[in-house]
């Protein structure tokens, strides 16, 4: 039979337990909007002698949904980075009077006008100015691509530094989790922190996680290299590499100092997206632009060198001959001396008609319909249109992919929130429940007090 003292002990345990439970509810409610906070749930157990106590403070979690959030964060990070880069690039290829296509049109138009009066110095000067304008459009386009590559490269450097901060923090939190008693408020706080760090890390690089029995979390990069293992974090090192045009190569450096080049393995997260943007997408457009500049310069020079200037001299180039396809757009320019000597422009087809002939000019004009671009498959205008379409398609595809990845990330966040988030309604219901239980515990103590009074008044 329970003594009056035992009854008091039961009442006291009820008060203490439900007060603690109300404390947990208060913490949940206060952190309803805290990013990365997972709901705590009180688990009670009966004590010997019929009292009650806190068995554990459980933290809601879902490793399955967590993995989906990490994966979708990486996808969104990659596509968002590529979409932003493409938006910046396509701004330089918007159809306008200053676009490459319009400038080529203007050059051909100036040649047609000159063909009506080939000896006119002003018209000759205009053709050369239009040709220069074409070369500037190419070099501007090449410079815009280089700028965007440099911008992506600089962002990679900053983000790699952030990855190293995050992995170091995760390793530190791993150590704290292992040291903390399981299923306690302290352990829950460490797990919240680790989850927040992992979410941010997944936005930067694609990772997968493997929980260990001691509560620590192993973080792996794509390809299986360990970024964090227990309390040890590897670091990413970004080093300018001549093989990448001076852009940063990413090495994974482990605790022993051994380095592994992972540049090609990083394809998710904003770092992976920027590497793909820098090394594949933008490099591809730069190659296309170089090829078109090379083909234009070569074709125009081929015709122009067969003609004669007003001085009766032939064999001159209109554009500076490109040495190679590489960097042909950046180095695209009008041949040396041409700007200062408009008479050098070869309009005539033979020396005898050097002053007023326009045969070579008509042959140059005919290049507008000649398949001199795209490896001999399309016209200059067709090549520019193809380039614009390709840039537009890539930009749109990345924007659409970023939108889809963002929606998927949002859905996974919703799922994650539904698993781990705080619902004010639930907390208020639990608050009322625990308040009632607390009042019931107090009533036990009041009742025991009355029983004591009754005994003492005998």
């Amino acid at each position: 039979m329970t003594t009056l003292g035992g009854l008091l002990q039961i009442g006291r345990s009820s008060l203490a337990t439900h007060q603690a439970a109300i404390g947990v509810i208060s913490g949940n409610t206060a952190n309803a909007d805290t990013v990365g906070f997972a709901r705590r749930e009180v688990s009670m157990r009966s004590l010997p002698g019929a009292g009650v106590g806190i068995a554990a403070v459980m933290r809601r979690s879902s490793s399955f949904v967590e993995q989906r959030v990490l994966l979708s964060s990486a996808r969104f990070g990659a596509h968002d980075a590529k979409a932003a880069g493409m938006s910046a690039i396509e701004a330089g290829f918007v159809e306008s009077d200053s676009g490459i296509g319009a400038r080529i049109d203007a050059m051909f138009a100036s040649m047609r006008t000159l063909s009506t009066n080939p000896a006119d110095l002003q018209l000759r000067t205009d053709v050369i100015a239009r040709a220069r304008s074409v070369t500037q459009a190419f070099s501007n386009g090449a410079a815009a691509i280089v700028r965007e590559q440099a911008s992506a490269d600089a962002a990679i450097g900053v983000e790699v530094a952030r990855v190293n901060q995050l992995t170091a923090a995760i390793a530190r939190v791993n150590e704290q989790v292992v040291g903390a008693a399981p299923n306690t408020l302290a352990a829950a706080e460490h797990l919240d922190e680790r989850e927040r760090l992992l979410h941010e890390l997944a936005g930067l690089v694609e990772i997968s996680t493997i929980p260990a029995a001691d509560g620590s979390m192993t973080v792996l990069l794509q390809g299986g290299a360990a970024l964090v293992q227990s309390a040890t974090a590897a670091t990413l090192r970004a080093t300018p590499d001549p093989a990448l045009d001076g852009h940063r190569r990413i090495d994974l450096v482990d605790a022993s100092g051994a380095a592994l080049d992972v540049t090609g393995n990083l394809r998710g997260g904003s770092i992976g997206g920027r590497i793909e943007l820098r090394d594949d997408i933008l490099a591809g457009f730069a190659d296309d632009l170089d090829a078109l500049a090379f083909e234009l310069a070569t074709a125009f020079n081929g015709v122009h060198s067969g003609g004669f200037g007003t001085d009766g001299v032939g064999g001159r180039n209109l554009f500076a001959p490109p040495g190679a396809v590489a960097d042909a757009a950046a180095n695209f320019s009008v041949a040396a001396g041409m700007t200062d000597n408009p008479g050098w422009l070869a309009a005539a087809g033979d020396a005898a008609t050097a002053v007023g002939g326009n045969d070579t000019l008509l042959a140059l004009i005919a290049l507008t319909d000649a398949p001199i671009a795209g490896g001999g498959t399309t016209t200059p205008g067709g090549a520019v249109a193809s380039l614009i379409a390709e840039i537009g398609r890539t930009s749109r595809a990345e924007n659409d992919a970023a939108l889809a990845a963002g929606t998927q990330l949002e859905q996974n966040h919703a799922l994650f929130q539904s698993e781990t988030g705080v619902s004010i309604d639930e907390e208020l219901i639990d608050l009322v429940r625990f308040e009632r239980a607390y009042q019931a515990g107090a009533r036990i103590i009041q009742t025991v007090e009355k029983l004591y009074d009754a005994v003492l008044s005998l």
Partner: protein
Amino acid sequence: MMRVTQSRQSGLALLAVASARARLQQAQQVAMSGERVSKPSDDPAAAARGRLLGELQARADSHLTTSQYGRSRLETAEQALAESGNVLVRARQLAIQMANGTMSGAERQAAAAEVAQLQRAMVDLVNTQHGDEYVFAHVDTRTRPYDPGAGFSYDVDAYSAIREAEVGPNQRVAIGASGSHAFAQRGAAPGSIDVVAVLAQLQANLSANDAVAIQADIDTVTTAFEQVLAERTRTGVRMEELDRANSAATQARAVYTGLRSDLIDADAAEAFSRLTLAENTMKAAVTVAARVLGPSLLDT
């Protein structure tokens, strides 16, 4: 059942409002710019086709400019040829009058003076300029084609072609008249006559009071007139070709402009309709967000 938390609800509300604002911003951009495709990613295929149509439009513009300049040059040549014809008509009238045996030596001297004047006028006509170019100078248009003392400055047999210009897709038209065909005696064309020399010959025969020779000059002046007239006719044909090319370029320009507008430009009614829809969606999103974030057990 899926748990729905307040944090999740507010996140969704924010997302809905942000999405509505993005659509509103896009609709505003279309309405303000008047362009459905303002950057390649708006519609990559349309942007590429728009570029090709832009090229065709610019080419049609260029052909218009070329044909207009060519016409202006041809008009100058045609006027000069017409005036040359008038000169030769007057010379022929004088030759016919002076071939009559009743004419006195003094009258023929007076006629010789007038023919000398006609000859100078003819030289000026052969040296007619359009802007800074001599229109009958073959290709070397900065050099006077005819010198009264030395004759033609270029080899009229070697250079009889006329400058051509592109006035349409794969269409070139001669934009001048041939001085050698109109005024010169060419080895390649038996029967052709040096028009200035014909007038000089007439003037000499008038001065010499040689009625028989003057009679013979009537035929040579007539031949010269027909030679000039033939080139004038060819020039007229070229002008007609240019007019047709100009008309085709004008039509092509209108067609390409319309096609490009259909591709790139936004329909005003549709743009404003979309803008209104986006504005209403934005208002609805904000209103719903305010209501979603409201009720909870705290309100009871």
